[in-house]
């Protein structure tokens, strides 16, 4: 399968360094302490944050800081062939690395003995669900008022038809040669999540990391705009009420 045409464009018409469209909405759930919804290409992911609240069971409590618990879950209908509900081994691993990555950014020492629970629900999957999930999760954490160094941003690069490109879609992920999901803290440029499968030379790896880092700065802007949009619309509602 050919993934890049003669003009250097990908099957969905993107350039090598082009992201799929990303849209984030904040405060989309009523009961949760914080929430966010992200559409990233064909990915649709909903995130809820609860906490900080008393960690349970008690032996999981850390007397000097909060624990960040992420649960990444795919809906049965989110993929082509129905996925058996409940966490499989892949979901357990992804939950673990997302929780660890978010913990890098959260000031956990401010909330001893508590847990901050992050529920990531993939409603529709289109490659890159973990990075869409972590990007929305940091926005939901802000929505819940959790103090952080910065919002973590996820982004992936990979290799298709021997060329390093940004943000693989489903076909590119299936038929490409490598995928490198990553998450960074934009303010410090620290890498907090990093996985890779496939085959890349050291130079290709360098290009991929650079592409993702650049894109992450742009996505960071989308996160901030989404948060601003929520508070702007609240302000407008208030003004509307007072003029009545």
């Amino acid at each position, binding site marked *: 399968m050919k993934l890049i045409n003669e003009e250097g464009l990908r099957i969905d018409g993107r350039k090598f360094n082009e992201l799929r469209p990303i849209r984030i909405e904040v405060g989309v759930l009523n009961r949760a302490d914080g929430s966010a919804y992200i559409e990233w290409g064909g990915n649709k992911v909903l995130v809820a944050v609860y906490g900080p609240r008393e960690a349970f069971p008690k032996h999981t409590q850390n*007397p*000097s800081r909060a624990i*960040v618990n992420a649960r990444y879950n795919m809906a049965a209908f989110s993929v082509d062939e129905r996925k058996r509900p409940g966490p499989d*081994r*892949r979901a*357990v*691993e992804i*939950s*673990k*690395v997302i*929780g*660890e*990555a978010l*913990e*890098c950014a959260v000031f956990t020492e*401010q909330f*001893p003995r508590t847990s901050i629970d992050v529920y990531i629900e993939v409603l529709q999957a289109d490659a890159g669900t973990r990075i869409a999930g972590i990007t929305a999760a940091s926005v939901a954490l802000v929505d819940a008022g959790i103090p952080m160094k910065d919002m973590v941003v996820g982004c992936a690069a990979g290799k298709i038809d021997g060329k390093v490109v940004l943000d693989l879609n489903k076909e590119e992920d299936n038929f490409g040669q490598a995928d*490198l999901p990553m998450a960074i*803290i934009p303010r*410090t*440029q*620290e*890498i*907090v*999540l*990093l*996985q*890779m*499968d*496939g*085959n*890349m*030379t*050291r130079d290709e*790896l*360098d290009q991929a*990391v650079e592409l993702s*880092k650049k894109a992450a700065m742009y996505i960071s802007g989308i996160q901030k705009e989404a948060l601003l949009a929520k508070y702007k619309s609240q302000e407008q509602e208030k003004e509307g009420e007072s003029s009545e």
Partner: protein
Amino acid sequence: MRAVSKSADEIVYGLKREYLEKICAEGSRIDGRKFDEVRPIIVNRNFVPRAQGSAEVRLGDSRVLVGIKIEQGEPFPDTPNSGILTTNAELLPMASPTFESGPPGEDAIELARVVDRGIRESKMIDLDKLVIKEGEKVWVVFVDMHILDYDGNLIDACALGAVAALLEATVPASKVGAEDFPLPINHVPVTVTFAKIGSTMLADPNLEEEEVASARLSIATNENGDVVAMQKGLSGSITKEELFSAVDASIKLGKDIRKRVLGK
């Protein structure tokens, strides 16, 4: 802010971390190794002759036993002309006071999946040659990793044990009326794991180092020096420079281990 009372364990942990960070900053490690030096490796092949391949690995004082079973099974519907690789790790309660019996927890699952990724993504096994009857019957390669003694860096010990055992494995084709044949191998991946202490990346961390590390990074490379799989762990971050210093070291150490230990 409310004063937090600390338990004795935490105070000891804090002291250990401070001490290890200090000696790393001064250029040394707790067991006297260089930053990019791995512990002595002993591989004992064919430890379990009843398995189709096996290897016992001692990496310093860590000890794991990997057994390969190759059995007939149905192919996955999306890969009807391919054999199957499945990997599992058991953190046996005998290996550490902190391991508990029961179904695999997230640590065991991550361990198995990181080892699996190194083998799968390097295309080590030629799975296309493991078809018995197209779309109906294929060979399933089970890689089972038993952790016997835990002194840090189980990922590298298990990955090395799995690769060593697979290199020796035989497909029991006589069971289906053909001749037994060696498991078809294309590549030889080697995984090297680093622990970040302070701002130093230490190759092959022992338990004491692993316990105080802020981040962990595993890198699998093939014989061409290409990177085939990576995994960052723990709740600390790494910089791009630290990533590439580890990539360079893993290519170098991978080459050495592949030749010296695996004879490839």
